[in-house]
């Protein structure tokens, strides 16, 4: 910001204390910078604040131009559970999240290991195929997949209307998780693995003991992202369970909430807040793994 002036006056090696004028300018720039940050921060927080305030209003207040709830209706958070099958939605969401997350971790770790630490012909070409699969929109394959599940009736079991068509593909390696884990495995020095090999350790045991222990942060990040993804997922559950409300997950239930309850914005906002809460709690519990995961996949790409 002010360095041009500083270097012009200080050609010698010892740095002088910058003159008062420069220091004042630096201070003002810092103040301006922080003011903009604070203003932006308030803008980012305002929607959360408005949602929370509305969630605490009575229905009449929510439909008026009032911004501050008076009186506070804490009951709304209870009413959400009695007026809508919220517990069913939570149960379905947990079923999807847990089964998918376990499947993603268990199936992606060995694949990522094969990409990062085993040498075989065509490895890099196959890895590019994984990347391509990661980039293509899910809409490209949804139609035949839907047809496939619709025509598949083992023992008369009908998959359409259940969450299984959304859960099962996660048991066969997830492209994003393979990518993230591979990036991390590449940073593990080969010497560790060679040491284990010299000690007579087979590749399977190396994977289940050495690598999984070293890669804990990456596996945690994968599990977190998988939880987040499934918790937020809307398009695919909507396709398969849209007509069968008994199998709705939270995101679908929330999107239909207003039609179930005729324009009650206060309850809708209470429900919205309840759906946001777990994600935000998880974030604060695992902030480090989050940011690490984002940068690992974003920059170290």
């Amino acid at each position, binding site marked *: *910001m002010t*360095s*041009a002036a500083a270097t012009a006056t200080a050609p010698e090696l010892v740095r002088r204390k910058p003159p008062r004028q420069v220091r004042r300018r630096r201070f003002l720039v*810092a103040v301006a*910078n922080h003011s*903009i*940050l604070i203003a*932006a*921060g308030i803008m*980012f927080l305002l929607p*959360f604040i*408005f*949602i929370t305030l509305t969630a605490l209003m009575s229905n009449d207040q929510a439909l008026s*131009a009032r*911004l501050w709830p008076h009186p506070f209706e804490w009951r709304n958070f209870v009413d959400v559970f009695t007026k809508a099958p919220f517990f069913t939605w939570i149960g379905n969401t947990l079923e999807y999240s847990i089964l998918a997350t376990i499947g993603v971790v268990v*199936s992606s770790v*060995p*694949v990522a290991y094969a990409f990062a630490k*085993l040498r*075989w012909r065509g490895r890099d070409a196959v890895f590019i195929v*994984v*990347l391509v*699969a990661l*980039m*293509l*929109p*899910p*809409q*490209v*394959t*949804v*139609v*035949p*997949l*839907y*047809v*496939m599940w*619709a025509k598949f009736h083992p023992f008369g079991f009908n998959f359409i209307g259940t969450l299984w068509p959304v859960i099962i593909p996660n*048991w*066969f390696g997830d492209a994003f998780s393979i990518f993230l884990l591979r990036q991390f495995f590449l*940073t593990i020095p080969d010497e560790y693995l060679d040491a284990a*090999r*010299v000690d007579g350790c087979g590749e399977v045991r190396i*994977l289940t003991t050495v690598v999984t222990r070293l890669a804990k942060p990456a596996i945690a990040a994968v599990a977190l992202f998988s939880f987040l993804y499934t918790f*937020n997922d809307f398009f695919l559950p909507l396709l398969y369970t849209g007509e069968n409300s008994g199998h709705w997950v*939270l*995101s679908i239930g*929330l*999107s239909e909430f207003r*039609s179930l309850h005729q*324009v009650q*914005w206060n309850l*809708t*906002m209470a429900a919205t807040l309840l759906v946001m809460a777990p*994600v*935000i709690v998880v974030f604060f519990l695992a902030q480090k793994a989050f940011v690490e995961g*984002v940068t690992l996949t*974003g*920059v*170290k790409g």
Partner: protein
Amino acid sequence: MSQGTVAGEGFPAAALTVDRRRARRRAAWRRRGLVLLFMSPWLVGFGVFFGYPLVMSAYLSFNHYDLLAPPRWVGWANYHYLFHEDPQVWTAVKNTIWLILVLVPLQVLFAFGLAVMLTRARMGVGVFRTVFYLPALAPPVAATLGFVYILNPVTGPVNVILGHLGIQGPLWFQDPHWSKPSLVGLGLWGVGTVMVIFLAAVLDVPKQLYESAELDGAGGWARMRWVTLPTISPVLLFAVILGVIQGLQYFTQAYVAAGVAAGQASQAADVTSVSLGYPLDSTLFYPVLLYEHGFTDFQMGYASAMAMLLLGVSFCVTLVIIVNSRKWVHYGGAAK
């Protein structure tokens, strides 16, 4: 791998070459089996949930298929209808292009601005970073619902506050001219992920580069233009292409916003195919139209043709990524 060489040293005499060769071959097969074993989840998944549907999609796009009667071959009819007759396709394509052209540059600029200001902040960096990142975490359905309420033309807080300031706020999600800008606002609110990536990139710029630029007399602006921007340009490119890819599959926010806004207007509040694209097809994006044809009208053949077009476009974008990826992979490796 080291395994083979370690085992090979144990043999005493040259007479055993045949055995040794056999053992080596066996080891090679075992290694191949191992790779196959480790790769098997992905191989099966890729075949069943990606390769097969891709081929089927191409096949179905030449058929009339409604899930009930068996597919009937119609040749290029679906594509002809797609390119020449479907009254909504052009609207959907235009909306999608609009969204990508407006949202992606704004997101990149906004995220970059926030990241740069964060690197210069002296206090509360962690707090600001968390605040900017939180909205990106909010489930899309919840975030969209919140925005539709906040931007309610009559009772929403934004228009109430604008009213106190003497400004007549727009109708936001109820107005075909404002519905897409409202979605852009929603997208900018969720810019946190991109910002975190940029922040890491800006912090990764080697300090020596700044110092030598400073010695050459470069001011703040010049350092930004000639040091920061070129160094993190691979990450910027990555963000742009990622944004385009996300723009091509933009669905949830448009679907929920249109449904809720339409329900709000009619008071009947029901998300049906009537509400898709509300108001006046202004939020009808390509994936939304694909959903309508495929999963409310069950024209599986035609929806497959739409999917093939989407495949072509996304494949080109992906190709650009892969071709350019060498740059940003290299940079990432050099920094750590």
